[in-house]
């Protein structure tokens, strides 16, 4: 029938299908942002916007890191410890002779290396990612505590002010990371993530280098988590060997909220970004609404279940004849 028109519309058609399950999440996030803006009009000032996005930024990065792992069909329990390690390496090296650039390189190298090593073990030894990263989380936590037993270290003030001052540099970086993700998806290794995660055998037979795809995705995931740690160090002006711990669970929550499937191969970064944004803006909205802390626990759980369940229910309705 309209076969000739399909190629032209394939991209939009695919994107529309990928967005469908996320409509509920988009609406919920938009509603929360509107409520937040009404409660706190200062959000529209540069300073207010900067501070808000700075508190969201590290969560966005770790959620992206977790999503990369989940697209591969695995879950990482080492995200939080990697954030701590990134923060510790930054705080230990930036005061040294290599300065900020040296610290940045050291953190990136550590993230890439740990990610790639984990990926190598998972891909070539065929071990489940959850086990490897569980073991890795103990090792990484130990290294972070060895490097910096108590909170401390040094981050230059100008660097803290640059990343976490009164300008929206962090938001700009997030946009850059997202553009980078789009570019990566245009490469064979990038597109291979979805293929290998969704159907590894099929992907292998179609010539996708499944193992190499995994190692690269794990390395990028490690890089993102370590950079989140670098940012946390800049934001707090110091390193703390256990500050990342809560990020592990939050990154999983954000990714699941964003529609990433546990079994791999399904999910979008835009959903992931929205999922992490919801987790972050929720905290601020509940504060301004004056929720007592106990009610916040309950509300948080209800919002998460709601945002995941609503699209599921609507799609079931739609599927009924």
């Amino acid at each position, binding site marked *: 029938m309209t076969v000739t028109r399909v190629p032209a519309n394939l991209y939009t058609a695919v994107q529309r299908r990928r967005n469908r399950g996320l409509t509920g999440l988009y609406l919920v996030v938009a509603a929360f942002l509107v409520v937040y803006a009404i409660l706190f009009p200062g959000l529209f000032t540069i300073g207010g916007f900067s501070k808000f996005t700075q*508190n969201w930024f590290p969560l966005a990065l770790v959620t992206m890191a977790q999503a990369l792992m989940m697209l591969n069909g695995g879950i990482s329990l080492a995200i939080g410890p990697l954030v701590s390690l990134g923060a510790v390496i930054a705080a230990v090296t930036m005061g040294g002779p290599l300065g900020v650039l040296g610290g940045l390189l050291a953190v990136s190298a550590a993230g890439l290396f740990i990610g790639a090593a984990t990926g190598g073990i998972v891909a070539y030894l065929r071990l489940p990612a959850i086990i490897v990263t569980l073991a890795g989380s103990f090792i990484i936590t130990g290294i972070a505590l060895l490097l910096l037993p108590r909170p401390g270290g040094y981050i230059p003030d100008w660097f803290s002010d640059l990343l976490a001052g009164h300008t929206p540099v962090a938001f700009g970086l997030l946009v850059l990371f997202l553009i980078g993700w789009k570019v990566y998806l245009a490469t064979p290794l990038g597109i291979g993530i979805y293929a290998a995660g969704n159907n590894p055998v099929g992907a292998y037979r179609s010539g996708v280098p499944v193992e190499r795809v995994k190692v690269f995705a794990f390395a990028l995931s490690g890089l993102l988590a370590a950079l989140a740690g670098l940012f946390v160090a800049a934001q707090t002006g110091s390193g703390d060997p256990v500050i990342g711990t809560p*990020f592990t669970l939050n990154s999983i929550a954000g990714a699941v909220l964003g529609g990433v499937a546990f079994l791999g191969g399904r999910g979008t970064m835009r959903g992931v970004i929205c999922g992490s944004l919801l987790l972050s803006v929720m905290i601020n909205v509940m504060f301004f609404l004056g929720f007592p802390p106990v009610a916040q626990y309950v509300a948080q759980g209800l919002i998460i279940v709601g945002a995941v369940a609503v699209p599921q229910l609507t799609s079931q309705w739609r599927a009924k004849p």
Partner: protein
Amino acid sequence: MKFLGSMRHRSLMVSAGVVAMLAAGSGTASAAANCIKGDREAPYTIGWANIYSVPTWMKQTEGTIAAEVERLKKEGLVDELMITDAQGNAQTQIQHIQSMIDADVDAVIVIAGSSNALDRVISDACDKGIAVVNFDSLVNTDKVTAKINTDSSEWGASAAQWMVDQLGGEGKVIVMNGPAGISVSDDRRKGAQPVLDANPGIEILTETNTEYNVAPAQEAMTSLLFANPEIDGVLSLGGALSAGSILAFDRQGREQVPTTGENARQFLELWNEKGLKGWATMQPNWLGALSVYTAVQALEGKDVPAFVKVPLPVISDDTIDSYLARAEQFPADGYIYSDYDRALFDELLAQ
């Protein structure tokens, strides 16, 4: 202003405060407290940025904060208390304090989830003229209105000294500590060491490191009782640990020995019931109430000390009855803290 050096910024703030006070004609106060610019007026909004609200000690502490706020409300000095709970996540605590700055509260009361992580956001609050009072678990930065705490090292030293006196300088002792690597547990233990060094007649049989809960402490002590037929004293450096120890002695049918501890209700009741020689001190929950009071005093233009050292209240065999008489007012797994009033607060702030 934001781009000036911090030193210059601070001196500007101080002079602004002085000018404001001169304009108000208040000649009594010598200088405004740190962070205070003098541009805020009663009734004030107080933000209480808690790190973790679930433990009983925290609930009781929040109780004293709420009670003090009620009182200040009646006096027309406070109109609202905002409470947050970071659920143990220092990053969330930063976000909460940022929200308090955005909501333009007049004072932030905080127990820090990390000694370093809050430094920058707390400095920001201070720059905005918000009174920041930090108690119990302290931050590094000095850009706060006041820090309020007891001395953990003194805690350990006093407990050890009491044990030495009880045993006449001779005896075998087991030391019970909180978790390893926790600063309060380390500091108390370190404080005890010089006293133990000075009394070589006291032999440390062994030490335990457990959570500050009854069950793990009882379990640890039970196995130590099998291994050590002769124990003359238990130097316990945390409340529920002592209760676990006494229960272990009791189950084994061993005679109770002199035991130190904290003001946990369970420990005080067992101490009384078993008729042993005991000694306890406390991290008073009313540090929370004192922090609110301090913040409001500072906002009212009074000078408050940058560090308020609260002396450790001591419970002994002579005074335990006065504590147990009030036991019903406290939760069964809670802490019976010493009495407090405004006079005590004023005295502490006059240091």
